């Protein structure tokens, strides 16, 4: 069995499972946030069960509409706080304490290799970076998990993406995952698991691996997954209790294997209106931008802020551009303060905000006017995603976004990558 099959077999008490089989799995961890949580809570109450199955296994995070921008979102936050209190859910992250759910979950030790994690958010697949089976579900389904602690899954086929070679900085994990999505398309992995492996992944930091798995859903995948190695064990051990990682068997099977050579990969950009509309940066260099955004569950991590500060250290944000930088968590914000990154970014003219999802989903903080163009490190460039349906969103790495913010137009970060 491969890693996904092994995790699902263990979670459903079976010796062996095969793709296509439907299993009833025990859930190890369940996460809701302020935009999907209130509906979960309403549905949970409708089911008519009084107590959640296990308050210790539930994590609640305020991150999307924070701090509250309207009375309506303030009310959603109250719904979340009240439910946490009533149900004795201690893993509740108030604003200023946690950050974006998909950073808080791994960072605070809620993601363990070999476990099954569900989140009421499509980017829950991020946690596969630590060798967990993690997938996004809807609010009603989450209410059922809160009531029963179980959920049915169809064991997926797995696609294996083997990345050979070495990424040359500033080309990064984001460029690699955009490249892969460009190759297979936005439904290239629908209903399937996407495994990332090979020397380029082994060499990749945990931050980079989280970026890779985060975007697995953008090709339709049920989860992204990476085999846990020594680096994974170190990261997780520093944050939590004992755990038992699982590994694929040597004779594990995959539906299809894709071999990629990343040595010559240049920075990539996903052009509107689809995440698979991916081009090398050289093809769209010079396109003028109005806004640049560095942050989100895809690229708001320390490594991302470091890359941005390396470019912005001796540069200023272009007069015609506003650069918004949002660290993915309070922990990252503090680390960036300690490393002097926040000061560099502020001096360069970046608008820096505390951890939240920010403009990524167009709800709050930095939405776009008609005919404006934004280059962003986030994960979706759909029509209307970041505000006006007449605005355009280009997706790229933190280095590409930082370089573009300096030049006022889409720019190859390799031209500004100095030590």
């Amino acid at each position, binding site marked *: 069995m491969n890693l996904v099959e092994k995790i699902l077999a263990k979670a459903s008490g079976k010796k062996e499972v095969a793709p296509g089989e439907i299993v009833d799995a025990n859930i190890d961890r369940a996460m809701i946030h302020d*935009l*999907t949580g*209130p*509906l979960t809570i*309403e*549905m949970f109450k*409708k*089911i*008519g*069960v009084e107590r959640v199955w296990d308050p210790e296994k539930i994590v609640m995070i305020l991150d*999307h*509409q924070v701090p509250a921008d*309207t009375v*309506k*979102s303030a009310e*959603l936050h109250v719904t979340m706080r009240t439910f946490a209190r009533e149900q004795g859910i201690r893993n509740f992250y108030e604003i200023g304490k946690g950050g974006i759910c998909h950073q808080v979950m791994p960072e605070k030790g809620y993601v363990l290799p070999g476990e099954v994690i569900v989140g*009421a*958010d*499509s980017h*829950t697949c991020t946690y596969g970076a630590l060798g967990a089976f993690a997938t*996004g*579900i*809807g*609010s*009603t*389904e989450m*209410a*059922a998990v809160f*009531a*029963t602690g179980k959920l049915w899954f169809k064991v997926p086929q797995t696609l294996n993406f083997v990345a050979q070679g070495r990424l040359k900085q500033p080309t990064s994990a984001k460029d690699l995952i955009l490249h892969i999505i460009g190759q297979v398309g*936005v*439904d290239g992995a*629908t*209903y399937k698991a996407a495994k990332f492996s090979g020397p380029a992944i082994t060499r990749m930091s945990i931050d980079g691996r989280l970026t890779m798995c985060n975007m697995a859903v953008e090709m*339709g995948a*049920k989860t992204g997954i990476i085999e846990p190695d020594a680096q994974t064990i170190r990261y997780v051990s520093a944050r939590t209790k004992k755990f038992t990682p699982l590994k694929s068997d040597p004779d594990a099977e995959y539906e299809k294997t894709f071999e990629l050579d990343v040595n010559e990969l240049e920075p990539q950009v996903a052009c509107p209106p*689809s995440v698979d509309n991916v081009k090398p940066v050289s093809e769209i260099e010079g396109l003028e931008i109005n806004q640049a955004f560095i942050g989100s569950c895809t690229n708001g991590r320390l490594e991302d802020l470091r890359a941005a500060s390396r470019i912005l250290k001796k540069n200023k944000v272009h007069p015609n551009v506003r650069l918004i930088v949002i660290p993915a968590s309070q922990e990252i914000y503090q680390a960036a303060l300690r490393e002097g990154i926040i000061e560099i970014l502020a001096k360069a003219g970046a608008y820096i905000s505390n951890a939240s999802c920010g403009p990524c*989903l*167009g*709800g709050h903080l930095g*939405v776009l006017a008609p005919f404006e163009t934004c280059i962003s490190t986030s994960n*979706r460039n*759909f*029509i*209307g*995603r970041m505000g006006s*349906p007449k605005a355009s969103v280009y997706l790229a790495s933190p280095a590409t976004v930082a370089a573009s913010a300096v030049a006022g137009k889409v720019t190859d970060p390799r031209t500004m990558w100095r030590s």
Partner: protein
Amino acid sequence: MIITGNAVKVGDHINTDLILPGKYLVFIEPEELAKHALEGLDPRFPEKARGGVVLIAGKNFGCGSSREQAPIALKHANVKCIVADSFARIFYRNAINIGLPVVECKEIADKVNEGDQLVVDLAEGVIKDLTLNQSWQIKPVPKFLLEILTAGGLVEYLKKRIKSK
């Protein structure tokens, strides 16, 4: 379960931001969400759907976010059923969980015309176009999913199961 309605056609890769833009996620009231159903694609859609429609879509319908508000908006805008070449997986599960029938059928999108009168029989696995006088076989919906749909969604289904225990 037999569903009737006129066809409204949409294309491939209709994502959740087109079905329900992110700015409306602060709402959970179905009637409020319904006012904005498919707003990103056609702001007049709720008016079009008023009499009850069957949505005919291409590939990967519902891709993107896990927002359950997307199928809720469609259901309460009076979409009776969605027939697509394929669905994004979270949307597919969400739709069934809130009691909105979703059916995969690869042959139909090119043939049906906007406004055709359709009948979808989930248990039998047949879609009929009464205007064209043509019908297509579909994979019958698995029994336990049909039970959820017949109950009106996962909440109602669980309620019944808990009661019968």
